[in-house]
């Protein structure tokens, strides 16, 4: 089966003030199949959102894709013309953003903003599109959908708006849905509801989901695969349960250490040293050398790590790869 | 008009917090250094200095009384009269030199009056809030209902076209925007911690307003003052153009007003004074933009 989305060696750079290219994302690769979910995990500034925008070909000004391939259902997106990209966006692939408070246009009703997707992609009449919009509001479990369709974004809560965003993104039954921190701006209780909703809608539509988050614990349940990003590099990737149970990279372990309780039901192995919060910060753009980007913050760093460049992703088990010189020792 | 106020607040970018500067450099010097980096600001400053120097030193180079008749009316620009003569045969160049003195002085003094009234009203309203604010906002609202130029015309017509009347009239009608700006700044600053700290330390209201809040509110006020000079120069021109200039003092506006009916016979008699006003206002605006960039670094990209 060909994957819905295949990202191969994707690299993104930013033009800095002096006109030089600074790498933001380096050699990222992942595949995702129909009905499956991959979570891209990492702290802010690690390149997650840029990956999402690169796939949508909506990178902000100053950011350029410097290499790699993005293939959606057999179609090379980097070779697609702008017109073709517009046809794909919102139809074959769509996106839910982090900030539901600002991601909706304040001047139009939510019904209108959902309907216009159908109007432009499906060529429905205004009236049919409006009726469909109400159906989608029902599908994302918004009560009194008929009335809510006539409401403006400012009249809704953050959770409601995010549901609207999801309805909008799924209106054309896309093959791929990218959700960029869809719950970060929401209350904890609402977060769980949104994740449940996404899971449920995925069962119905078989949409492949790229879920972007900084909260590894929250997605361990929802995701099938996890790719951990650090400073623009993928440092660990594999099946979600495997990574949650046996994280190899010190950074991944740190991320899991930050999570209060794991929802996957695997007890925390005794041998783990509880890292708590990882001290330090992601190195800034342009301050990333060839050596391991996590070196400065790593509690397990050895002379070996300091003397060599960042290792390539190496398979430790089937489907589980990690970029760490000491992966074998840490696993032991 | 509170909706107007809030709308304006939406229309204008929020004024960024006070610029942080390295310790060793005084804010004024840092701002000056920043200003020197703005090519248009420096160009404006140079242009303004040239105009001012022209009105100060001009009479030495060109000692002609602007009210004297020196030749035939409507003499085109030539070697005798570099910029030609007007409808009475007066020298246009002399008019430009002496007229500049009046126009630029009116501009500067009227802007000063504008700012003094505006800052006083805005500071009191913003600092005290409550009924003081309500009352002063109501008064500003009243002044905003009257078109400033028209109001100034009525004042000058009633009280007579003297340079002093014109200056005061311009200042008296155009202070509302400075007041609005100052009020917003004071309201923002009033609740900041360091102001509260001064208040807690027992500082009196007058001390707080003048020594603590005002210095921090200065950057936008300075910008607004620069722009007020330009507006005042245009107002002086407009009033003189309508025949409300002081007939005993040559000014750029007066030259245009007196010669406008003969524009088809003698283009030079209105074109040059108009260009002088244009250049003066342009220079002041450029300086204003440069100052704005210097004191509001975050807005520099615009």
């Amino acid at each position, binding site marked *: 089966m060909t994957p819905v989305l295949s990202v191969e060696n994707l690299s993104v750079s930013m033009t800095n003030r002096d006109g030089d290219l600074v790498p933001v994302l380096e050699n990222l690769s992942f595949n995702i199949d129909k009905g499956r979910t991959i979570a891209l995990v990492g702290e802010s500034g690690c390149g997650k959102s840029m990956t999402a925008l690169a796939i949508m070909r*909506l990178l902000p000004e100053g950011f350029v894709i410097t290499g790699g391939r993005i293939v959606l259902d057999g179609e090379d997106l980097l070779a697609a013309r702008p017109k073709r990209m*517009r*046809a794909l*966006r*919102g139809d074959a692939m769509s996106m839910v*953003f982090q*900030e539901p408070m*600002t*991601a*909706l*246009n*304040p*001047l139009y009703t939510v019904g209108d903003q959902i309907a*216009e*997707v159908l109007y*432009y992609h499906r060529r429905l009449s205004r009236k049919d599109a409006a009726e469909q919009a109400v159906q989608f509001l029902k599908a994302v479990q918004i009560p009194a959908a008929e009335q809510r369709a006539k409401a*403006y974004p*400012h009249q809704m809560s953050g959770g409601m708006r995010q549901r609207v965003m999801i309805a*909008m993104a799924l209106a054309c039954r896309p093959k791929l849905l990218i959700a960029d921190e869809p719950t970060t701006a929401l209350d904890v209780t609402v977060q769980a509801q949104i994740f449940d909703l996404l899971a449920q809608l995925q069962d119905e539509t078989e949409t492949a989901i790229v879920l972007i988050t900084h909260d590894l614990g929250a997605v361990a349940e929802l995701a099938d695969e996890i790719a951990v990003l650090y400073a623009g590099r993928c440092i660990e990737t594999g099946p979600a349960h495997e990574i949650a149970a046996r994280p190899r990279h010190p950074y991944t372990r740190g991320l899991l250490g930050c999570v209060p309780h794991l929802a996957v039901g695997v007890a925390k192995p005794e041998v783990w040293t509880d890292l708590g919060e990882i001290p330090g910060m992601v190195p800034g753009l342009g301050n990333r050398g060839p050596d391991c980007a996590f070196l400065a913050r790593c509690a397990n760093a050895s002379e070996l790590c300091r003397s060599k460049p960042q290792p390539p992703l190496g398979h430790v088990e089937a489907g589980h790869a990690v970029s760490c010189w000491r992966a074998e020792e840490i696993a032991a | 008009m509170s*909706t*107007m106020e809030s*709308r*304006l607040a*939406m*229309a204008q970018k929020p004024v960024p917090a006070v610029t942080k500067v390295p310790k060793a450099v005084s804010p004024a010097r840092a701002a000056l250094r920043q200003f020197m980096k703005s090519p248009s600001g420096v160009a404006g400053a140079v242009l303004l200095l040239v105009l001012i120097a022209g009105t100060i030193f001009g009479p030495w180079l060109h000692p002609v009384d602007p009210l004297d008749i020196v030749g035939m009316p409507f003499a085109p620009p030539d070697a005798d009269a570099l910029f030609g003569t007007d409808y009475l045969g007066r020298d246009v160049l002399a008019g430009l030199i002496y007229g500049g003195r009046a126009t630029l002085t009116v501009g500067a003094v009227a802007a000063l009056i504008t700012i003094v009234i505006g800052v006083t009203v805005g500071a009191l309203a913003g600092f005290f809030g409550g009924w003081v604010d309500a009352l002063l906002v109501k008064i500003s609202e*009243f002044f*905003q*209902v*009257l*078109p*400033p*130029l*028209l*109001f100034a*015309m*009525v*004042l000058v*017509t*009633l*009280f*007579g076209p003297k340079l002093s009347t014109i200056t005061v009239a311009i200042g008296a009608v155009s202070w509302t925007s400075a007041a609005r700006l100052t009020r917003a700044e004071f309201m923002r600053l009033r609740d900041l911690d360091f102001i509260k700290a001064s208040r807690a330390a027992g500082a009196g209201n007058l001390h707080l307003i003048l020594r603590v809040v005002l210095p921090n509110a200065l950057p936008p006020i300075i910008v607004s003052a620069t722009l007020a000079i*330009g507006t005042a120069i245009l107002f002086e*021109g407009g009033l003189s*153009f*309508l025949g*409300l200039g002081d007939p005993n003092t040559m000014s750029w*506006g007066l030259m*245009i007003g007196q010669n*406008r009916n003969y*524009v*088809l016979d003698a283009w030079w008699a*209105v*074109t040059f004074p*108009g260009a002088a*006003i*244009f250049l003066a*206002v*342009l220079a002041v*605006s450029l300086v204003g933009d440069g100052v704005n960039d210097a004191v509001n670094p975050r807005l520099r990209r*615009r």
Partner: protein
Amino acid sequence: MALLTHLFGKFANAVVLLLAVLVMNFCLIHLAPGDPVQVIAGEMGGASPEVIAALRAKYGLDHSLLEQLFTYLGKVVHGDFGYSYYFNQPVLGLILQRLPATLYLAAASLVIAVLIGTVLGVISARRPNGLLSHGVTVLALAGHAAPIFWTGLLLLLLFGSVWPILPVSGMTDVVDPKTGLAYAADVAKHLVLPSITLGLVFVAQYSRLARVNMIDVLSADYIRTAHAKGLPERVVLVKHALRNTLIPIVTVVGLQFGNLFAGAVLVETVYSWPGMGRLVFDSILRRDYPTLMGVLFFSAVMVIAANILTDLVYRLIDPRIRAGAR
């Protein structure tokens, strides 16, 4: 209902403000140097002793100031804004006669300013460092710095003698008067130069404002959403960006109506446009105070009306205001 209550509040506020304008008018007349009778009659209004005696009686000038104020206000309430001895007409009639011409001019200039200003601003915002963007910046500076009467005179010079293709004076062709449609066309032709002159100042301002706002709006999250939805570029720009950009422009249009009116006074003087501005000029020349005061009062009425209108337009554009959430 909320709208009605809101409008009622606006009207009540307007009445208070207009009363204040009248009180100020009254005070100004009495503060001005010279006998108020002279002021009311106008210095050159041919004030014969009989007229002066009649005026004293009419305005009760022998009574206390407070009584005089109420007499004055009473007259105004009944539509009596005084009598222009120079024009030999009641002030109210004089102003109403001139009002349409000024409204044509103001409306035409406003349309030019908002349309061209917004279009220039929006187009240039798409390339913030492009040629057009710099052009807009220069235009904004030049438009602000050029005295409107000077621009007017230069255009008059250009179209009056160098390239005479447009009428430069008056509102109609007096030599060859027209009727019906031809009349409207004639007026429109005469309107071209005055409205462009007046509009140019505001084109400069609005294009700069539109540009800055459009740049802001284009970087808003909801614009990214609109792109992510795959909407056509045109729909993103016009439906999602432009309407948001218009909000601050509408605000400024409302705030600046007074300046538009004052600009009209200057432009009408340049092109002998027979509106209220021209009336102001003539009254200044003749020291015709009643007319001048009347015009000042009516300009306040127009500014307030413009503010209320702006408020309504604003509500139409922005649902957040409609819902009462400011």
